[in-house]
């Protein structure tokens, strides 16, 4: 694994937790894909397969009081942040026990209890929102970091540039986390950016930045520790580019005509769970029993979530207009 200066305490317990969080996202989403084929989950379903190390590396470094803004590929972020799996899955079912009362679905997981500001399905749309959250904290003098996740596709949006400029200009405590998975839906990075070294764009706005191997959970956690501390101590933004890869299709409707199977296979060998597990085995930090126990715990949690979502209830149609405004409560 990467040599790190801001080395996380990689105790056995911590290492196993990192592994478990990644496997938890993977297996949860495998179940989601299965439920999608059964038409339990509808609409768009964007899986995080291959990118789990980013959310698992970054989000636990944040404090409870910090804020998280995510994208439409946010199941992993929500789970790691502490949104209960039951409520997340019920949301994807569209049940009113879901974390957004079933109103949002897969792309719009919200959770006030964990300062989780969604689930934004307008690429780049979450960045100005993160600026505003951080502006409020800045104006009140609150010691709060806003972590804003977005893909490299968002980098082509005007809102990306407006937001980086505002964060630097006004000195706002935002951690920008670019999940560079090399494809904006089906358009390769080289076909959409004149400068493909994304982190260099931060320098134009005088924002400190770092690029990190997005398949290496330990490296990401180390970088995130450094980045979050920098934001908290300086009150200024920091830009972290995590170079990763989406192993599955963009959504469940994607035939993946835009990339070679060989390319996907090559990345599969680098994928974060296999890689970290292999390293733990080689370092004798994990026993076969550990993995069996972790998987059993996760499977039990998933089974509980499925039961919860299945037994959830549909919001009465009479409540359709409820919460369009604060005073439209039924």
């Amino acid at each position, binding site marked *: 694994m990467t040599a790190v200066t801001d080395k996380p305490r990689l105790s056995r317990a911590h290492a196993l937790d990192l592994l478990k969080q990644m496997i938890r996202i993977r297996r949860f989403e495998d179940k989601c894909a299965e439920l999608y084929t059964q038409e339990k989950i509808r609409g768009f379903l964007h899986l995080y397969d291959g990118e789990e190390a980013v959310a698992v590396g970054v989000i636990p470094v944040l404090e409870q009081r910090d804020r998280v803004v995510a994208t439409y590929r946010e199941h992993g972020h929500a789970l790691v942040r502490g949104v209960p799996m039951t409520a997340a899955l019920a949301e994807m079912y569209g049940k009113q026990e879901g974390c957004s009362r079933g109103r*949002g679905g897969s792309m719009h997981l919200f959770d006030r209890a964990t300062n989780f500001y969604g689930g934004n399905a307008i690429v780049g749309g979450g960045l100005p929102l993160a600026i505003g959250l951080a502006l409020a904290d800045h104006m009140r003098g609150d010691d709060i970091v806003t972590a804003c996740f977005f893909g490299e596709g968002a980098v082509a949006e005007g809102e990306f540039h*407006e937001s980086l400029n*505002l964060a630097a200009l006004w000195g706002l405590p935002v951690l920008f986390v670019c999940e560079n998975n090399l494809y904006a839906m089906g358009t390769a990075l080289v076909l959409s950016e004149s400068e493909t070294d994304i982190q260099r764009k931060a320098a134009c706005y005088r924002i400190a930045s770092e690029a990190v191997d997005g398949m290496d959970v330990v490296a990401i956690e180390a970088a995130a520790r450094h980045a979050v501390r920098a934001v908290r101590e300086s009150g200024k933004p920091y830009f972290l580019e995590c170079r990763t890869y989406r192993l599955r299709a963009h959504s469940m409707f994607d035939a993946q005509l835009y990339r070679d199977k060989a390319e996907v296979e090559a990345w599969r060998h680098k994928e974060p769970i296999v890689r970290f597990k292999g390293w733990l085995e080689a370092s004798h930090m994990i026993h076969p029993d550990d993995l069996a126990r972790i998987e059993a715990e996760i499977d039990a949690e998933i089974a509980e979530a499925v039961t919860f979502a299945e037994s959830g209830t549909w919001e009465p149609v009479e409540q359709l207009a409820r919460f369009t405004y604060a005073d439209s409560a039924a």
Partner: protein
Amino acid sequence: MTAPAAMIEVTYRDAMREAIRDALRRDKNVFLMGEDVGRYGGCYAVSKGLLAEFGPERIRDTPLSESGFTGAGIGAAMAGMRPIVELMTVNFSLLALDQILNTAATVRHMSGNQFGVPLVIRMATGAGRQLAAQHSHSLEGWYAHIPGIKVLAPATVEDARGMLWTAVQDPDPVLIFENVMLYNMTGKLAADAGAVGIDKAAVRRTGRDISLITYGGSLWKALEAAAALAAEDIEAEVIDLRSLRPIDDATIMTSVKKTRRAVIVDEGWRSGSLSAEICTRIIEQAFWELDAPIGRVCSEEVPIPYPRHLEIAAIPQVPKIVAAAKIALGRA
């Protein structure tokens, strides 16, 4: 019994500035943010002097990043602040439309009421200053199409002074459209004038023969038309909508059921417009009370042109309103 407060003569601009000042004084979470609101004093001089009084944190000049700072206003509102975002003109607001429609208007419903956006967005609208086709349009009707936001059009100095605080206190996004031709208008305002309600239309002139339904800058043209009609013994009632979303149907229908005739005056384009919406509501709710087809005076379906004579021809004017009223009365 206390004596009524003295009346003072103020401009619409002054009334709006006083409203912003008052909101900043009353609530430390309020701040004003937008292009040139600080050092320049506001494109239309509304915020002139506020920077010196409240400082650059609360009178926050922004780069030309409409989507960025409007989204920042949304985020700050979600985090408990009460931002007032100024978007200079409605044409520029289109650069922030993504944030207004896709975030501000959706978040409460989409998040199952976990997050609200108590944000006020102010902007200038309307033609009349020869600013041509990228600074003169009246797109408030578009915004009135969107569930999740409220849309206000203060037409009087009293509303310019009073609507803002009510809007700032509202838990949901409120857009305030200020017609550019009103900024220099003067009116009488009570020295102690304060907040006003934002959910009711107002009858600005009572009459028995026809209802002229309008808002914003066109209100004064409708009132002038009503005066001209009075000279011909036609008593027009003039309704100022004040709120374009929600629309106060009750006040409209009460008037139309009395006068049995209506003309709608709207500086927006006719097709797919707010005037079309009002017209439809009258047909839905008061069809059997009508004695004549409903008339409309809207902007011509062209981009607003620069030359004065063409600009005048492009937007509603008093003679057109008078003519439309007479047609509705069968006196054309």
